[in-house]
């Protein structure tokens, strides 16, 4: 009997625990991946967000604010669950973050249904840019198709006639393939969609053998996060550098380069990728961001970090315009839409679907003045580019 | 008239022939004892009769019916039931539940999902009657595990009787029993003759001679003798092969 009561008491306490109130005036939820292999990206985003918070001195629009980080565990259903929690329990004013397209797709309705604003700091699936676009959705990254479209143009510029492509089998992976297909003028000699998710396929030997046998001029791949490192290792071991030139999309970044350098993967130095950003992008806000990030964390930021940094500063610009009052969502939308802040990409403008209109560049892996590997912009591939799905959006 | 009959029943395990062309016949309302040294194939034979093992060749008949192809539950429903050498009970059930379940098994299918089986008067009354016959009624509410070894053997028989078998095969029912318990069981088994036919596998020769009307001797998988007990036990080859050794 005593234990029955003790148990009930324990349960009641467990319920009461979260009742302790949060102090800040403005609360921003930030959903990202902080456990599993995907946490590499999540940690970089968190670091960039914390840098922005520090630079803003935890104040926006004259009010104090705080960021509530939540872990999506790399799973759409968990991402949705924590989003619901941020909205219903923590009562946040805005939700931001989201690395993965599938997590975003599962979660965004929980936010829009509560008539609050959601800002994607990475994921940009086609549905939400087009048919399912929502007035409460904003992005500080890109639509999934844009970077691969830039890749297609880059491949055309480099004279590639036949292409083999590999990507993971999930929404973004398919969007990437579709994007390259849209702008690449040569022929696809093969493509592979590999298993993704918590138990993603990391041994690409079978696919690489097929790619090699296909006789393609180039190999384009999209492998974000830890899969990228694994892919590069195998690309090098299979002796494909020199035989089958590598073009990457969101596969090699500031997160994987130090590791690749440590493992002597020098076959990839000089390989090219398409991106909207690089650490050496010649914009004052970017230079300042990269310098401050390196100062604080001792490494280059990745584009994930850059986008997250932009997301917080975008929110801050809206807070400044509204005097820190986020109670009227219509006004918040209005203020965000102006994008009146110093973005790391220079001028920042939203399209009708609230995706940024922006330049895309070719960037190349080089060693910096200290011998550390980084990426450097070689040419502009697309200028002031708007994603193709914007036309389907009724906003 | 024979109620249970086998024809040329053969079972091999690898190179070992466990039962070798055994042809056995049981007559109605008699106790037929099956004896033989350890490893002679008695348990294998019982297993083939009950349907637990399929023979490599040969037939089994219950009455006129060929039951060789029937599986174990179907043979039980046809009237051929067995007990186990090592008590095989439902240990989490009470003694009454053990027997009541056996009665339930006999009384047709159990696709009844709603009424509480514990409150079923028909099952409980028949179970209690059987327990009374076996002298276990005062233990009806304890769990089967808490019974003594001898009592577990008795419960084993009560459960088999619940199936109303026309032939009951008893695999060493006296194993591990004290002298007093054994003699009580012998008395009980004698009274069963009027209701059923018994196939008795037993090592206790006193029990065998006290009970058996007919006697079969199994050695190395072969049936070396089968017939009226009084005659078989005096046959020289039987004494040589089996009785002589143990005597």
């Amino acid at each position: 009997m005593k234990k029955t009561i003790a148990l009930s008491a324990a349960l009641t306490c467990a319920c009461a625990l979260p009742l302790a109130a949060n102090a800040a005036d403005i609360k921003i939820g930030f959903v990202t991946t902080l456990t599993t292999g995907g946490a590499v990206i999540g940690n970089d985003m968190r670091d960039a967000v914390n840098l922005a918070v520090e630079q803003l001195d935890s104040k926006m629009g004259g009010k104090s604010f705080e960021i509530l980080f939540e872990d999506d565990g790399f799973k759409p259903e968990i991402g949705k669950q924590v989003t619901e929690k941020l909205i219903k329990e923590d009562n946040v004013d805005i939700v931001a973050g989201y690395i993965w397209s599938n997590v975003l797709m599962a979660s965004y309705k929980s936010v829009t249904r509560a008539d609050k604003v959601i800002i994607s700091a990475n994921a940009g699936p086609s549905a939400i840019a087009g048919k399912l676009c929502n007035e409460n959705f904003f992005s500080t990254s890109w639509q999934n198709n844009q970077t691969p479209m830039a890749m297609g143009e880059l491949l055309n510029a480099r004279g590639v006639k036949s292409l083999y492509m590999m990507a993971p089998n999930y929404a973004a992976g398919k969007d990437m393939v579709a994007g390259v297909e849209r702008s690449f003028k040569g022929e696809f000699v093969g493509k592979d969609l590999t298993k993704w998710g918590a138990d993603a396929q990391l041994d690409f030997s079978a696919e690489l053998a097929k790619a090699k046998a296909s006789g393609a001029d180039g190999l384009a791949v999209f492998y974000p996060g830890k899969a990228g490192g694994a892919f590069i290792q195998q690309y090098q071991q299979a002796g494909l550098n020199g035989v089958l030139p590598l073009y990457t999309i969101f596969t090699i970044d500031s997160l994987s380069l130090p590791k690749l350098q440590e493992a002597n993967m020098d076959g990839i130095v000089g390989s090219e990728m398409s991106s909207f950003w690089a650490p050496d992008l010649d914009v004052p806000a970017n230079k300042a961001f990269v310098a401050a990030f390196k100062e604080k964390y001792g490494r280059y930021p990745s584009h994930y970090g850059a986008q997250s940094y932009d997301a917080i500063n975008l929110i801050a610009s809206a807070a400044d315009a509204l005097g820190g009052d986020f109670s009227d969502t219509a006004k918040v939308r209005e203020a965000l839409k102006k994008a009146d802040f110093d973005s790391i990409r220079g001028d920042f403008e939203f399209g009708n679907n609230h995706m940024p209109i922006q330049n895309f560049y070719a960037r190349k892996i080089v060693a910096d003045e200290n011998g550390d590997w980084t990426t450097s912009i070689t040419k502009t591939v697309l200028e002031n580019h708007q994603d193709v799905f914007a036309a389907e959006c009724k906003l | 008239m024979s109620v249970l009959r086998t024809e040329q029943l053969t079972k091999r395990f690898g190179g070992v022939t466990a039962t070798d062309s055994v042809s056995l016949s049981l007559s109605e309302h008699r106790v037929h004892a099956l004896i033989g040294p350890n490893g002679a194939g008695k348990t294998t034979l019982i297993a083939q009769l009950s349907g637990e093992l399929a023979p490599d060749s040969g037939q089994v008949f219950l009455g006129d019916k060929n039951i060789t192809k029937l599986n174990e539950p179907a043979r039980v429903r046809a009237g051929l039931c067995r007990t186990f050498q090592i008590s095989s009970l439902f240990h989490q059930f009470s003694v009454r539940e053990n027997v009541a379940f056996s009665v339930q098994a006999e009384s047709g299918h159990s696709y009844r999902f709603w009424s509480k089986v514990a409150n079923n008067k028909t099952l409980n009354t028949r179970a209690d009657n059987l327990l009374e016959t076996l002298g276990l009624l005062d233990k009806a509410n304890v769990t089967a595990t808490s019974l003594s070894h001898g009592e577990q053997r008795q419960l084993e028989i009560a459960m088999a009787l619940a199936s109303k078998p026309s032939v009951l095969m008893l695999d060493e029912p006296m194993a591990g029993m004290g002298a007093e318990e054994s003699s009580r069981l012998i008395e009980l088994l004698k009274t069963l003759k009027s209701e059923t036919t018994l196939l008795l596998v037993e090592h206790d020769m006193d029990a065998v001679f006290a009970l058996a009307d007919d006697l079969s001797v199994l050695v190395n998988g072969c049936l070396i003798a089968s017939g009226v007990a009084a005659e078989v036990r005096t046959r020289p080859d039987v004494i040589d092969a089996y009785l002589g050794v143990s005597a």
Partner: protein
Amino acid sequence: MDSTNARRFGSGLVLVLLLTVPFLMLYLGKAFWLDIFTRLVILAIAASSLSLLLSVAGLPSFGHAAYLGLGAYAVGIPVYFATYGGADWLASYNGWWHLVLTISVCGLFALVTGAISLRTRGVHFIMITMAFSQMIFYLLVSLEEFGGDDGLSVDLRSEFLGLDKRFGFNIEEPWIFYLLCYGVLLVVLFIVSRLRHSHFGRVLAAAKQNETRVRALGVNPYGYRLFAFVIAGIIGGVAGFLYANFSYFVSPGMVEWTRSGELMFMIILGGASSIFGPVVGAACFVLLEHVLSRITLFWHLPFGLLLLGVVLFGRGGVIGLLKRERDT
């Protein structure tokens, strides 16, 4: 207090807490707790259905999450078609139609896979049930049109025509939906309890203890087990049906083998011997998950330790602990 009364008191307490606490939290402005309790109750339904196999029949099915997934997609796919067009014969927002689909799909799947799985024993049974649920997992992953790996957003909850208009029974309303789930849980518990104590249940219990003897008494347990397998599958499917409506989202993640393991854990955690074990287990599981993940990002560590502790030292689960206290 004797043991039967104590058990009744405990069961009553659980049911009363489940009915009062979420509404108390709602009153206190903690709307999210209604969500947590809804999840809890739905998982309790799933765990109860599994307990019919695991605790009553002694069949350790390691693929029960498949039914959650099938039930969920039986809601997700018709709603998807109703929203975006296509497959007119399937498309519908009608909750009764979803329920019919759930029951027939899960029943059929359980019948076919059960008929095969029940030919095996012990660890082979564990593995073959897991294999079938993995097949469903990869099937759902390959259903490109319904989102594949990414899952499928369900735009609206099922509509129960007839009930909605006449009684204002609109399950879009979270507290009404909670009451619906709670009601289903009560019905499921009642069904499981009845089955457990019926003639049918006694065959399962007997076959769990000593299959050889059951056969020697003339009963072939195969058919009874298959029936239990189908019933458990259907109830598991109903839990999935509710889950899809609850979360507005279905994904193959619901069928991962770890989810099947979690359902088993709930039963062991709560105590396999009691009908309320799975409910208590699901409650502990969901609340622990929530509380631990608030305290630390690395909540899997204490959770793993707890799992280990419960298995090594906590025989009989939470209910067993309570019982043991009375015995001493």
